[in-house]
């Protein structure tokens, strides 16, 4: 670093404090927009992702679909394959897969489940439900049932079930009441309603019934196997990659949440692209602003540049002075803008506490460092061309001799 170039660049900036401050304020504004957009787009994505994938599994492991093997030798015959429905879909040997899944990077929780269809009957009222048999300690590993309880407790005794608030409303059910459940395997028994939850997802609140894993085995006539393993991963957007890894390591069919929610994913993607475009425009504005300011500064200092060149200053020194000048404007403006944005975003609540109508701004996703780095680099690049012009100034013309 040429210390003399740094000194002269600083002197140039301090010589016109008002103009320098105005330039830096412009850069700061651009950086604030950059950070605000990052925090908003990131926060919005987090909110939508939280709301959408917060209560659903990120990866589901099931038995792969079985196709019947072709017994006829290949030849001219036309072969029609039909899905084999002769056996139940179950993961018969699932325990060895559990440690493999747990050790997979990104996996935060897993829940082996027994699932089946049933009817809830109370008097003359009947409603179809989806029963989820979970291990009691893993009740809230996928959907936060504990946090969603609106009545009763979330414990799962052998004769207890948890039902959703909409189902309770439809059938007029309350905690402590006994209902009868008839499974699609032809088995039926009575259960006491231990608690009522409200996840805020209509389908779950109307149709999901949670019960003890062991009880579900008996109800669905599944003595050893399980229906599926549900998995949570962090971050949720890594689900496709983790699903692929699990598919390889367990041999099971692994479905990431993104496959069933591709529209949301595309929406988030489009939103992120929009944010990138807005951020790019704020950077372009900074580049144009700094480049034009540097060109003006160079025109004003033409005679000075000429005299320095006449006194033996190299072209490299002249380039360094003006590139440093632009870079300093970018750096200081960016730091001030980042600081201002940080202070402005400080009082805003975290995304998880945003109320309806509020802006879901996530300060942690503000890309403060990226904004400062990119702006400084952009400012440096914006100064290079004007600085090279400055170095080409003919000293004889510039000093009018």
């Amino acid at each position, binding site marked *: 670093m*040429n*210390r*003399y*170039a740094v*000194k*002269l660049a600083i*002197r*140039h900036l*301090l*010589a016109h404090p008002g103009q320098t401050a105005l330039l830096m304020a412009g850069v700061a504004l651009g950086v604030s927009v950059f950070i605000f957009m990052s925090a908003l787009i990131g926060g919005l994505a987090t909110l939508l992702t939280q709301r959408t994938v917060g209560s659903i599994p990120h990866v589901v492991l099931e038995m792969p679909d079985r196709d019947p093997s072709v017994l006829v030798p290949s030849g001219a015959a036309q072969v029609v394959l039909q899905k084999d429905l002769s056996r139940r879909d179950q993961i018969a040997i699932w325990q060895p897969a559990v440690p493999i899944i747990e050790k997979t990077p990104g996996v935060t929780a897993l829940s082996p489940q027994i699932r089946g269809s049933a009817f809830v009957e109370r008097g003359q009222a009947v409603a179809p439900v989806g029963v989820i048999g979970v291990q009691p300690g893993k009740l809230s590993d996928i959907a936060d049932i504990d946090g969603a309880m609106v009545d009763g407790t979330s414990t799962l005794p052998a004769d207890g079930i948890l039902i959703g608030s909409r189902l309770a409303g439809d059938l007029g059910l309350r905690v402590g009441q006994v209902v009868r459940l008839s499974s699609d395997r032809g088995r039926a028994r009575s259960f006491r309603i231990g608690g009522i939850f409200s996840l805020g997802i209509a389908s779950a609140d109307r149709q999901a019934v949670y019960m003890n894993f062991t009880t579900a085995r008996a109800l669905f006539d599944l003595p050893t196997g399980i229906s599926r393993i549900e998995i949570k991963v962090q971050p949720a957007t890594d689900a496709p990659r983790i699903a692929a890894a699990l598919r390889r390591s367990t041999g099971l069919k692994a479905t990431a949440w993104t496959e069933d929610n591709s529209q949301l994913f595309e929406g988030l993607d489009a939103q992120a692209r929009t944010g990138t475009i807005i951020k790019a425009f704020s950077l372009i504005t900074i580049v144009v602003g700094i480049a034009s300011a540097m060109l003006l500064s160079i025109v004003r200092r033409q*005679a*000075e540049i000429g*005299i*320095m*060149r*006449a*006194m*033996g*200053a*190299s*072209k490299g*020194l002249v380039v360094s002075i003006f590139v440093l000048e632009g870079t300093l404007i970018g750096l200081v403006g960016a730091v001030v803008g980042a600081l201002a944005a940080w202070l402005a975003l400080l009082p805003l609540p975290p995304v998880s506490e945003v109320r309806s109508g509020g802006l879901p701004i996530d300060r942690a996703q503000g890309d403060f460092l990226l904004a400062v780095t990119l702006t400084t680099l952009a400012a440096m690049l914006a100064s290079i061309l004007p600085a090279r012009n400055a170095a080409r100034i003919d*000293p*004889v013309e510039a*000093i*009018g*001799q």
Partner: protein
Amino acid sequence: MSADPIFSVSGLTKAFGEGEGEVLVLRGIDLAMEAGEMTALLGPSGSGKSTLLTILGTLMRASGGSHAMLGVDLMHASDAERTEFRSRHLGFVFQFHHLLPDLSALENVMMPAAAAAGRETRAMRSRAMDLLDAVGLADRRDYRPSAMSGGQRQRAAVARALINNPVLVLADEPTGNLDRQSADQVMDLIRSINRTMATSFLISTHDEHIAAQCQRRIELLDGRIVRS
């Protein structure tokens, strides 16, 4: 003339423009200067004085002829080599002081040395102080040019020209913008430096009074030396 001149030019020509619009400003200059010489370059406006000084100062290339200084062929040196040569061996004083407005007098005097070295050093500061002292501006060291008089600025410019201990100082109408008293002060200063530091000066001027204070005079007319 000495066998070892500090510079010599021979058959030097300079043309501006091309084709029919070509203007020949220098038409074959043969000139050499000895170390420690103080020479006045006289001639009417348009005679080519400033162009000759500019070429001798390596700020412009001649169109033809030869130009050598301290054994270096400056006609064929690259731009970077000429810049470095200028920085090490030449000093300039212009009609207008051309001090940098954002630097103090001391910083302005140090500028050519600092620009070459990439930083200001204690030794530079000390030499700049000595030079400011020599030109009678020691008490103005922290003043910006805007806070100094015309004569003071020009004396600071003379001090700046000397910071790299040049062999030759090229002065183009150094007193042209000054009143008689300030002009005399600057010329006294130049003569004193020429005597004590043995620095050569080539001073372009219209003023016979200035020329009379130099040891040698060269007269230029229409791009030719008519008296040397």
